[in-house]
């Protein structure tokens, strides 16, 4: 477990949907590294394969789809794609955690949010019921939920969208993972809440020293959040580089098109 070398090393990752022989490639052999503590962004339009890439790292296939993965996803040198299912369960949540797009649907509606976080802590860290609850309350406080001790006993429907995303984030960071994958974490939220959630992710990243993989279709979200950007288009990484460089001097035409798609206050004024 030395700090030298990347935390995550992805080589020639492919993902294809459908049965063998007639499979449709969705991710076409992409390679990238994530260093410990580094924040990287994946940008691209819907369907470009960025979410499938994120799920492939945790070997989460969309339910009902038959997905064939290829290549190598090395976490600290171990290939996750070859890991037995039991060991993979130990990686998920504990080493690499994920936050999803829709906080409305990502919590079990019939369990209190506290129970859901308790469960995870008890499973991964063998905490006692009481210790787990204490940690849960701390975590809910950490992600900015007011009065966490009593809110832990509330059900997901009693929380607003932004609050639920905070709960999801609390759950994801509860075992202090080395890498947090955030798949469009703010897309389902309104703009003011978006900024709060992004600030929270940024703060947690620094406090917990974890790497962050931020996936979005919105270049505006990436700015100020990450160091490295990967622009994805049709299952391939078409441009990569430091975030400032890409904003200043995009090379690929697709990247330029994406940057041009960010609405600017001046244009809005002119058209109205």
């Amino acid at each position: 477990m030395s700090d030298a070398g990347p935390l995550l090393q992805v080589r020639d990752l492919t993902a294809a949907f459908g049965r063998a022989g007639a499979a449709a490639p969705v991710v076409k052999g992409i390679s990238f590294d994530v260093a410990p503590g580094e924040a990287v962004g994946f940008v691209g339009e819907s369907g470009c394969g960025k979410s499938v890439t994120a799920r492939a790292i945790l070997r989460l296939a969309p339910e009902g789809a038959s997905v064939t993965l290829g290549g190598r996803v090395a976490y600290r040198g171990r290939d996750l794609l070859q890991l037995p299912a039991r060991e993979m369960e130990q990686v998920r949540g504990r080493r690499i955690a994920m936050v999803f797009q829709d906080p409305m649907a990502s919590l079990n509606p019939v369990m209190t949010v506290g129970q859901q976080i308790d469960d995870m802590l008890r499973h991964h860290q063998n905490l006692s019921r009481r210790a787990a609850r204490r940690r849960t309350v701390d975590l809910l406080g950490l992600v900015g939920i007011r009065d966490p001790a009593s809110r832990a006993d509330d059900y997901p429907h009693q929380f607003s969208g932004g609050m639920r995303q905070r709960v999801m984030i609390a759950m994801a960071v509860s075992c202090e993972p080395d890498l947090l994958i955030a798949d469009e974490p703010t897309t389902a939220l309104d703009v003011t809440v978006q900024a709060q959630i992004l600030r929270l992710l940024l703060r947690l990243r620094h406090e917990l020293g974890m790497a962050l993989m931020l996936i979005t279709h919105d270049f505006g979200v990436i700015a100020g959040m990450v160091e490295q950007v990967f622009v994805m288009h049709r299952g391939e990484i078409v441009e990569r580089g430091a975030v400032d460089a890409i904003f200043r001097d995009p090379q690929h035409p697709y990247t330029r098109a994406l940057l041009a798609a960010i609405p600017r206050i001046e244009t809005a004024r002119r058209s109205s």
Partner: protein
Amino acid sequence: MNDAAPRPGARGRLLLTIGLVMLAVLVAVMVLGPSLAPYSPSRTTPDSLAGPTAQHWLGTDSIGRDLLSRLIVGGRSTLLITFASVALALCAGLVLGLASGYLGGRVDLVVMRLLDVIFAFPVFLLAIAVVAALGPTVPNLILTIAIVYTPTLARVVRAPVLSVKRWDHVEAARSVGVREFDIATRHVLPLVVSPIIVQTSLTLANTIFTVTALSFLGLGPPPPDPNWGSMLAEARQFMELAPLTVIGPAIAIVFASLTFIVLANGLREALDVGSR
């Protein structure tokens, strides 16, 4: 909001209340049974096939046994068999339906085809065959009826599991390392209980008929212990002389089965099954 029409839930609540009161009567009969009966169900008296009197409220049967006492004690037997077999069918249905729906693929194929085989037989044909093969004892009867109703319950479990397992919170649970078994039992099963509860109640209604019909055909608990089915069979030949001997058990059977149907409808509306 200013009209006097009952709210959508009101009818469901009314049905549910009626159903629960009826169920309370049945459970009281089942639990208290012999202590509730005025006489021993096997005590004979000289006046056979007598009409209702102050001593025998419903009269007596062909060998002078008190009809009311036999109805109460017989109800205990019929209801116990009914509840036990449905409980067994529910357990099997939950395990098979959840495994089948959640795991999918080959497990689903094998389990569902096996259940289809059971499902393809008419209920009575299958029940008679199994009881005849195993022998007409109470445990065998319970087992038989459980087997007959397992496919229905398994299907009712499986169908919503197929949809709930694709919900986002299941993937979210998986992404934080929750074990598959825990996902199935804690994150999927609790979301599909409503239709299962309703179907269980309907199955209880059907089972009452199956149990009494099998007893009527002599495949029930062995005599002399009374039960509603065998009472009906014994009384059949004296139907014209003493109609109460037939009407008594018949009404009891209809009442019990109606209880579960009313309850199922009340639960269906109260739990909002079908709108989700």
